[in-house]
């Protein structure tokens, strides 16, 4: 972003990569898929790079408002400094925080989840999928991230994207508003679960098995981790892939 600014250019959209997207080995692949799609569609985008910092989501959910406010206010200073108007995130947690919680702290932007932006690229004809049969005969189910679905009522964009593939979209018994959490939200990603008789991601993976899907599509790096672990737990890695919607689209567009 700094380079673009120095060159006197403004991006169409800022790609907010997120901490998982920057540091987690699995999530970095999702980041690359998103970047490939943006590049392929000639979207003029920028990233903050080293100037990006945690959105503050896990701090606020964990009850530490101080850390959240520090992060949010510093990020808003950076974003406003670059006069950012439009942001796409690779993570529903960043998406929710930037979209809903930054405005009252002085940071108002148009914030999109990556599935919404990709949907837009397809709708406007900037991205076309090659009917290469990559997903022919495959059953794909979408695991709704809580912070995309219930928290922000985004259910359609990721499903439209999956339906544009040549596979078949199958729903789990709990989906959309009834979707079951993967177990990572509310800062649970960073701690052991409280005492219980089951892990939440195992409960959710059972829904996946019941749906007989070959692919679990996710829209959140944390859900991706939890579902991948869940599938491993049932020794089903050979039968069931866990992939982000962006990765599915990048594959279908042969990027």
């Amino acid at each position, binding site marked *: 972003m700094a380079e673009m600014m120095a060159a006197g250019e403004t991006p169409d959209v800022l790609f907010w990569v997120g901490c998982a997207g920057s540091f987690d080995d699995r999530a970095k692949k999702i980041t690359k898929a998103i970047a490939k799609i943006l590049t392929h569609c000639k979207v003029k985008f920028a990233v903050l790079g080293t100037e990006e910092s945690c959105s503050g989501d896990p701090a606020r959910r964990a009850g*530490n408002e101080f850390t959240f406010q520090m992060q949010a206010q510093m990020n808003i200073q950076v974003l406003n400094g670059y006069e950012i108007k439009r942001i796409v995130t690779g993570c529903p947690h960043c998406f929710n925080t930037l979209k809903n919680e930054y405005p009252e702290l002085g940071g108002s932007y148009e914030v999109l989840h990556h599935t919404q932006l990709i949907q837009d690229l397809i709708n406007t004809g900037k991205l076309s999928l090659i009917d290469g049969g990559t997903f022919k005969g495959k059953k794909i189910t979408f695991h709704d991230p809580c912070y995309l679905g219930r928290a922000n009522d985004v259910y359609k964009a990721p499903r439209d994207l999956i339906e544009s593939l040549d596979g078949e979209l199958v729903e789990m018994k709990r989906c959309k508003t009834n979707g079951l959490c993967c177990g990572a939200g509310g800062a649970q990603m960073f701690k052991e679960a409280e005492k219980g008789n089951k892990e939440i991601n195992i409960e959710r993976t059972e829904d996946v098995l019941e749906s007989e899907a070959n692919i679990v599509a996710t829209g959140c790096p944390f859900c991706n981790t939890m579902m991948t672990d869940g599938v491993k737990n049932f020794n089903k890695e050979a039968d069931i892939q866990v992939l982000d919607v962006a990765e599915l689209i990048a594959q279908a567009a042969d990027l």
Partner: protein
Amino acid sequence: MVAHLVFVVLVLVSMTLFLWKMSSIVKQIKLGRPTNRTDRVGERIKTMLLVAFGQKKMFNRPIPAILHFIFYVAFIITQIELIEVFIDGFTGSHRFFYHAGLGAFYTFVISSIEVLSVLTFIATLIFFSRRNLIKIPRFTSSDLNGWARNDANLILLFELLLIIFIFMMNGADEADKIWRSNVGYGFAVSQYLGPLVFGQINNVDLLHIISSIGWWGHLLMVFVFLNYLPYSKHLHILFAFPNTYFSNLNAKGKFNNMESVEAEVKLMLDPSADPYAASPATEAPQRFGAKDVQDLSWKQLLDAYSCTECGRCTSVCPANQTGKLLSPRKIMMDTRDRLSEIGAKNFDLNDGKSLLGDYITPEELWACTSCNACVQECPVNIDPLSIIVDLRRYLVMEESKVPTELTGMLTNIENNGAPWQFSPADRMKWTEEN
């Protein structure tokens, strides 16, 4: 004359008791902190019409929704009959509307009430069996142990008694009228039920007594019900309406902003701020988060009194389904219990007890994934998550009681701007990898 006097005294006593108890509840709710829920009036009215009047969210589960809808319609229509009962009670008349020349329309209204009453009777029996015979999990879980379970069954029992009294009254009247003039009122159910049950009683006085028992019994049940409401989960029949009107209209993922913290951090980040300037605070600073009910907002307290303990929230909670201690329903019940305890202790806030600790444990709070399933599910738009978050805030910011792993996560964010220990300098590494 005596009956007249008894009636007036009963009305006055029960209304006074009811209003006295309700005023205490309103006072309890007003203990809560301010929150603005009076904006966007149009949207609020629409929400209330859809969710409370239209019971939109109930219909996500069709069987209980239909049964509950029968109760709801029957309850509203029966109020017409109740108006007549009151007029008869005050004036000493008998079936005032009938004699006022409403004729066929009167028969139609009472017949509708009778049909709905029969349906309600059946629905009540089904509800009884769902709780006690079929044992649906959300009605048998341990968070309902004790009073809550009895409360639910007691309400159903009242319902059955009320309907029996209605049919005693109408049935005996029908039998009486048929006996005297060969033609009854023609009420849909009791024109058959009356002669069937009371047809052998060829004694006008006895029929009058039975009808009177029905009339007084009905009235008494209404007063019992009215005064039981404020002590029961059944208060939702009144509070569902304001509670949905004052719903949170923001995206569910948005947590409320803590302005005091915002201001403080702003000062910290402002290079031109004078660190030695006197604090502008004129009153004692508010507690961060919530330890007890008075630290919650009035809407959260209204939520607690609106909860009818149906358990939909708990049945969809991922933590609860996987055996963790958390039950969103218990969070609401605890909040209400603690609040009414304070009300019962003459609003003594320093009784050495608190919502957090004495009612809700940290283990419950830390099991929450903030997934909003409970909020989504609640048929009257209660928000258990916001209470969980406020209690967490108190634990973390006032008492520094944070699970160890989360301390690490928070330290990482503060030190290197990410929840994991990675250097911010490495944020672009993904661009170099294949």
